[in-house]
């Protein structure tokens, strides 16, 4: 009797032990990861600011940055040129790279979730092609004057990116609903059309060809604080706003019909997320150029490590995207000075092998 009883309870224990009911969402580990990544991001920012053609000691960098924060007084022990290099050259560049990485990664994760397609990236429905054409036109217009020290290329790229998506959106709409397949097809078709024009302008451009093609590959060769001040509110607010929709995106990974039957207002959610993701992508692209690879790979890498739950995937993508692009930009400017390698080349050359390594090691369903 006793034997039978203990055997039965043992089986129950084995059966119950498999599932940790008290922690179904595994949120503790994921929140810890977010905090650690945030600390890592700050370290990477300091590190990237001290590295460059003239290497500045880490402690000096920290002192200079801290001295800029109000209410903290630190006695100046460094040269004025060092301070200029850090505050007006490297700092805006590093911050811009971080913001751009965050925007592209979170927009990529959002697009992948909305389209339920692992191949989706922030450029899927025409932002990049629109921005590319806008930028090339900006290069060709001979007026060099600038508005708030913004050059014409950035302004035109921003307008071009948003304009292209607006056209795709209007073309892809069927009645009141927005079928995702139609949207992708409209995006791909308009993208091809715009690329054709861009390529034609590019080969007939003559002198400005070099500038244009390096813009199209992405990079932050002439960063200014004004760029940071313009993109920061759009990208920070937009990215945080998208994070609020984590659970809706989870439920939308069933098909749209099931998501609706689980109480999600699918059409409204799609519209809001598309608009916000497009806006932050356009903001990122207008200063950084068309940096490939970040938007598609970072969300997948995060998914491989921390799982598919969008409530964590979105914020973790923001942090990882930022860190990744700051480091990639650091490589772009330090590998063979004084020449800068276009950022798009660095992200793909170093990011792709890392991603393939993850893919091979984890061997689980990516999407």
């Amino acid at each position: 009797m006793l034997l039978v009883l203990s055997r039965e309870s043992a089986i129950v224990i084995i059966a119950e032990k498999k599932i940790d009911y008290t922690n179904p969402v595994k949120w503790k580990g994921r929140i810890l990861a977010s905090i650690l990544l945030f600390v890592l991001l700050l370290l990477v920012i300091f590190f990237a600011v001290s590295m460059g053609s003239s290497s500045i000691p880490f402690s000096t960098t920290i002192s200079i940055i801290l001295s800029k924060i109000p209410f903290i007084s630190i006695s100046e022990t460094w040269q004025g040129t060092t301070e200029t290099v850090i505050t007006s050259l490297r700092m805006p560049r590093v911050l811009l790279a971080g913001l751009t990485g965050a925007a592209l990664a979170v927009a990529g994760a959002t697009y992948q979730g909305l389209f339920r397609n692992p191949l989706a990236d922030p450029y899927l429905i025409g932002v990049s092609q629109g921005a590319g054409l806008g930028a090339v036109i900006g290069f060709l217009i001979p007026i060099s004057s600038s508005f708030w020290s913004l050059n014409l290329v950035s302004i035109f790229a921003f307008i071009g990116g948003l304009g292209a998506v607006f056209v795709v959106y209007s073309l892809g709409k069927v009645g009141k609903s927005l079928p995702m397949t139609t949207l992708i097809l409209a995006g791909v078709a308009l993208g091809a059309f715009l690329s054709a024009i861009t390529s034609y302008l590019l080969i007939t451009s003559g002198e400005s060809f070099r500038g244009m093609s390096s813009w199209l590959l992405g990079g932050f060769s002439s960063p200014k604080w004004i760029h940071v001040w313009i993109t920061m509110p759009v990208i920070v607010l937009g990215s945080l706003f998208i994070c609020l929709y984590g659970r809706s995106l989870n439920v939308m990974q069933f098909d749209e019909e099931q998501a609706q039957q689980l109480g999600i207002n699918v059409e409204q959610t799609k519209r809001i997320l598309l608009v916000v993701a497009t806006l932050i992508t356009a903001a990122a692209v207008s200063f950084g150029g068309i940096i490939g690879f970040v938007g598609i790979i970072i969300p997948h890498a995060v998914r491989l490590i921390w799982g598919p739950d969008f409530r964590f995937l979105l914020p973790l993508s923001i942090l990882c995207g930022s860190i990744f692009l700051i480091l990639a930009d650091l490589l772009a400017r330090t590998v063979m000075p004084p020449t800068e390698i276009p950022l798009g080349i660095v992200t793909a050359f170093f990011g792709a092998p890392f991603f393939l390594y993850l893919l091979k090691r984890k061997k689980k369903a990516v999407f």
Partner: protein
Amino acid sequence: MQKLSLKNVTLGYGETIVLSGIDMEILSGEVLGIVGPNGCGKSTLIKGITRVIPLKGGDILLNERSTKGISQNDIARTVAVVPQSAALPEAFTAFEIVLMGRTPHMKFLEYEGQKDVDIAVKAMKMTDTIHLAERRAGELSGGERQRLTIARALAQQPQIILLDEPTSHLDINYQIETLELISELCKKERLAVLAALHDLNLAAQYCDRIIMLNKGRIFNEGTPCEVVTAINVKQVYGADVCISSHPVNRLPVTLVTGSRWHNGN
């Protein structure tokens, strides 16, 4: 007393009308079967009730209240759907999927609490899926997925369950278990159940009432014995069958006779 009533409902896609003049009531504690040939509008009916497609005419009342003004979330709190072939996101675990059934009950930024976890565990135990909890949906068989979507629907704690061919991917054992579970829940929890079914035998065994649809209209409505008759099946499906009565409970049984036996071969 939960009640879903359809009043002169017309449904369709774009210009095409699929269902018209549909009047029906689904009462708590009752399993209502919807049968009819392919394309007669069974799935459309379920989409219309959950407002996935807009009403073209008539009205749907949930506990005497029109569903026209209420939000998608309010409908989902009362009405759960078990879809025909559920597309489940492959990377999520079975437990995460069932837990998503709690969506309509949670506020915008709320996280699943212990109460939600308990409800999900209970739903998974009822549907015999608890041992799958940590498996990814992509690794599960068709039958396991089907039971998982039923568990998700139960986690919604609905008062009304709509099932679209709930047994289509299941072997005979799970067909019986699923329908037993649903009719048990229906009686015990006083749920109102609407099940679109292909199998006339299962419909006859498990439904209290059957509605037979044909060409977008209600062809016949009544008890299994009244609806499942050789004449009705011939008229609606165009199929020649024999209707016998079940040796144990006298309910109608549809028998198929292969044509090669007609001439005494």
